[in-house]
C-alpha cells in the first residue's frame, strides 16, 4: 500500500509504547510486525473490555452492556459498508475521499425517492419495511455507483492526468462533499425524513435478555453478505486482482496490460454502491438527514485506518470495533461523544501502527 514517509517513527513508538512490562524489544524490523499486530489486537480488546468495566462501574447492568455491544456490532456493519468502499478508493486512488459521506447520504435519499414512488407493501417478516425498500436499495446502489463514476470522470480523472498532488485530490473531494450535500438539500430539503413514518419496529427477544430489532439483524446480515462478496471479488475475480495490482503499483499494472482507468471506474462504482447500501441501512436504523453521511465519515475513516488502507477485510473488522466502541461510550458518557471515541481510537492507531491492523507487509 501507500508507502509512508513517517512510517518508521511510529513503529518505534509501538515497540516502546506497547511493551510496558519488562521486555523492551529494540528490534522493529520486518519480523516484529506480527508482534505489532498481535499487540494492537490485544490493545484494542483491552480498550473494549475497559469500556465495559467503566460502563459497569458507572451503574450500567450487564444486560444493557451486552445489548450495547450487539448494537455496536450492527452499527459497525453499517459503518463497514461505507468503510469498505472508502478503503478500496483510498487504496487504489491513494487519497482520502471526503465526499464518501455524501455518497452514503445520496444512497439513502435515492431509496427514499423510490419508496415514495412505489405502493407500500406489507412488512416482510418482523422487519419494519416491505419489498419497496429492497427495490429502492437495488436502485440506489447502481445510481450512487454511477454518480461516483461520473464525478471521477469530471474531476478526479483530470487531476490524475496531470499528476496533481494528493492535497488537490483531497481538496477536490471536500468540494464534492459539499456540492453533493447541497444537491441533496436542494432536492429533498433540510428536514428529517423517515422511510416509514410511524411504523412500529418491535424488538425481538433473544436469549440472555438481549433485545434486538429485526431490522438490525437485517442490516448486519446484509453487511456480512456484501463484505463476503467484496472479498470474493478481490480474491477470485480478474477485476479484483487487477484492482489489487493497481493499488500496489499503478505503473506496473499498466505495463502488464491492465486498463487502470477501467479498474478505477469499477472501484468507484463498487465503492459508491456499498456506500449507498450503508446509507440505506443507516437511515433504516435512525432517520434520513442531509448530514447523516458526514456524521458517519469520521467513524468510517477510523475503521479504514484501523484495518489498514486498501484492505477490505481489515476495514470490516476495524469498523466493527469502532461501532462497538461508539455504542459502549453511551454506557458511561454522553452518546454525543461516540465519534470522539472513534476518533481517539483512530489517532491511537495512527500513532501506534499507522499501517493498520492487517497490513500485509
Amino acid at each position, binding site marked *: 500500500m501507500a508507502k509512508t514517509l513517517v512510517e518508521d517513527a511510529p513503529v518505534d513508538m509501538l515497540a516502546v509504547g506497547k511493551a510496558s512490562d519488562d521486555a523492551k524489544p529494540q528490534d522493529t524490523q520486518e519480523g516484529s510486525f506480527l508482534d505489532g499486530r498481535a499487540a494492537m489486537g490485544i490493545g484494542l480488546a483491552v480498550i473494549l473490555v475497559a469500556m465495559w468495566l467503566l460502563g459497569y462501574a458507572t451503574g450500567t447492568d450487564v444486560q444493557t452492556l451486552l445489548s450495547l455491544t450487539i448494537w455496536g456490532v450492527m452499527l459497525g456493519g453499517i459503518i463497514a459498508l461505507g468503510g469498505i468502499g472508502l478503503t478500496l478508493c483510498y487504496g487504489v486512488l491513494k487519497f482520502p475521499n471526503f465526499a464518501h459521506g455524501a455518497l452514503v447520504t445520496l444512497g439513502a435519499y435515492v431509496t427514499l425517492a423510490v419508496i415514495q414512488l412505489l405502493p407500500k407493501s406489507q412488512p416482510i417478516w418482523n422487519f419494519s419495511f416491505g419489498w419497496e425498500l429492497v427495490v429502492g436499495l437495488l436502485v440506489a446502489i447502481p445510481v450512487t455507483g454511477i454518480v461516483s463514476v461520473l464525478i471521477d470522470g469530471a474531476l478526479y480523472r483530470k487531476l490524475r492526468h496531470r499528476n496533481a498532488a494528493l492535497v488537490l485530490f483531497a481538496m477536490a473531494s471536500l468540494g464534492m462533499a459539499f*456540492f453533493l*450535500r447541497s444537491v441533496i438539500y*436542494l432536492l429533498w430539503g433540510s428536514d428529517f425524513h423517515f422511510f416509514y413514518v410511524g411504523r412500529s419496529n418491535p424488538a425481538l427477544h433473544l436469549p440472555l435478555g438481549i433485545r434486538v430489532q429485526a431490522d438490525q439483524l437485517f442490516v448486519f446480515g446484509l453487511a456480512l453478505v456484501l463484505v463476503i462478496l467484496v472479498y470474493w471479488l478481490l480474491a477470485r475475480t480478474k477485476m479484483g486482482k487487477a484492482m489489487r495490482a493497481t493499488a500496489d503499483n499503478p505503473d506496473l499494472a499498466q505495463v502488464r496490460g491492465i486498463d487502470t482507468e477501467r479498474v478505477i471506474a469499477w472501484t468507484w462504482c463498487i465503492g459508491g454502491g456499498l456506500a449507498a447500501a450503508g446509507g440505506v441501512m443507516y437511515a433504516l436504523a435512525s432517520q434520513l438527514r442531509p448530514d447523516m453521511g458526514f456524521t458517519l*465519515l*469520521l467513524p468510517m475513516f477510523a475503521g479504514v485506518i484501523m484495518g489498514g488502507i486498501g484492505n477490505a477485510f481489515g476495514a470490516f473488522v476495524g469498523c466493527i470495533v469502532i461501532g462497538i466502541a461508539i455504542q459502549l461510550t453511551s454506557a458511561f458518557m454522553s452518546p*454525543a461523544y461516540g465519534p470522539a471515541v472513534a*476518533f481517539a481510537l483512530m489517532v491511537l492507531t495512527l*500513532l501506534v501502527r499507522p499501517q493498520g491492523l492487517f497490513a500485509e507487509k
Partner: protein
Amino acid sequence: MDPAAIAKAYFLIIPLMFLAFAILRMRWAWRIPVGIVLAVLVAFGAEGFVPGAIDYLVSFSVMASLYAILSLGLNSQWGYNGHLDFGVAGFFAVGAFTSALFITAPPSGLMAQYAQQAFGLQAPFLVGVIAAGIVSGVVGYLIALPVLRLRVDFLAIATLGIAEIIRRIFQNERWLANGPQPLSGIPQPFSCVFQHPVCSWLPKSVADVVAPLQPRDYGYLYLVVAVVALAIVYFILETAVRSPWGRALRAVRDEEASAAMNGKPVASLRVQSFVLGAVVMGVGGALYASYMVTIDYSHFKPLFGTFIVWVMLMLGGSGNNKGAILGAFVIWGVWSGTGFVTDAMQASLSSIAPEIASRTAFLRWTFVGLLLAGIVLYRPEGILKEEKIVSGFLKRFAPGSRKRLAEPAE
C-alpha cells in the same frame, strides 16, 4: 450632507486608508499622504452620494475582514508549511468561545437559571482577544504534538475530526458555555459610543460628532476594529514569512530533506507554523464573537468554519498573504451576491412551488462547491501566485534592481 453621514464618513476613513495603502504601488513616502487624501475623498464622496449602499457594504466588509483573518491563519499553516488543516472551524470556535467567556459577565439573578458558563471575567475586549489567541494556540500545540507526525492525508482526516469534537464539546457541555443554547450578551468594544448618553471618557468634540449615530450603526466602528486587526495580523505574518524563519518554513514545505540537511529543526518548525496559524484563527474567532454578540455551536459547522475558508485561500492564492485577503473578500462577495440571486429566485418561485423556493438558499453551497472544484482543476495556484523570492534582502539586490550586490558600498 446630514450629520449622521458625516460621522459615518469619519469611521470609513481608516479602513479606506488601509485599502489605499494596499492598492497603491508607490514609495511609502508618497503612499501615506496620497492614501490618506484618497481615503478622505472617497469616504465623504461615498457617504455623500450613496449612503444606503455603504451600510450594506460595511457589514459585508466586517465579515470579509474576519474571514480574511481566518484565511491568513490557514495560509500560515497550509500556504507556508503545507499542513492540510481541515479543522479551521475548531480553532475558530475555541477562539470565539474563549474570548466570549473572558469578556462576558457571569449570568446572575434570573438569568443564572437559564444560562450557564464556566466563568465570566468581564475582562476588556483586548484581553479577550489575546486570551483567545493563547488558548487557541495551546489547543493547536496539543493537537500538533501527536498529529503533525502523520502523513498529510492523515492530518486532514485528524484535523477534520478534531474540529468536529470541539464543536460537540461546545454543544454538549452546558457548564462550559451554555451547552446547545447560545451564549449571548457578548460585549462589543466601544459600543457606548453609539449609545445615549455616550461614554463618559469621550471628549466633548468627538461626542458631538457621533451624537447623530444610532446603536445600529455600530458596524462602522467594528469595521475599524476588524480592519486594524487584519492589518496587524497581515503585517506580522508578512514580516514573519520574509524573515529567515518564514523562509525556513517554506523550505520545510518544499524540500523537507534538504531543510533538515541544512540544520533546520524540521519537526519543531512544523509545530511552530501550525501553532501560529491556530493563534491567528483564534484571534479571528474572538473578533467574530464580539461582532455577533450571540454565538452557539452551530456557527462553527464545517461549511462556514472550514470549507469556505479553504475556498477563499485557494482562490486568492495559497502562500500569498495578499491573496488570502483578496480571496476572503471575493468569496464572501460571491457568497453574499448569490444570496441576492437566491432571494430573488425565492420570491418568484414561492408562488409557483413554495417547497422548492425555501431550498434555493442552498444553491450557493452548490456554487461554492463547484467553484472549489474549478479552482483545483484550472488554477490551483490561485489568483495571486506565491512569490518565488520573499526575502527582502535578496529582492533588493536581485539582478535587474537598481542596487547590485557587486557595487561597492560607499
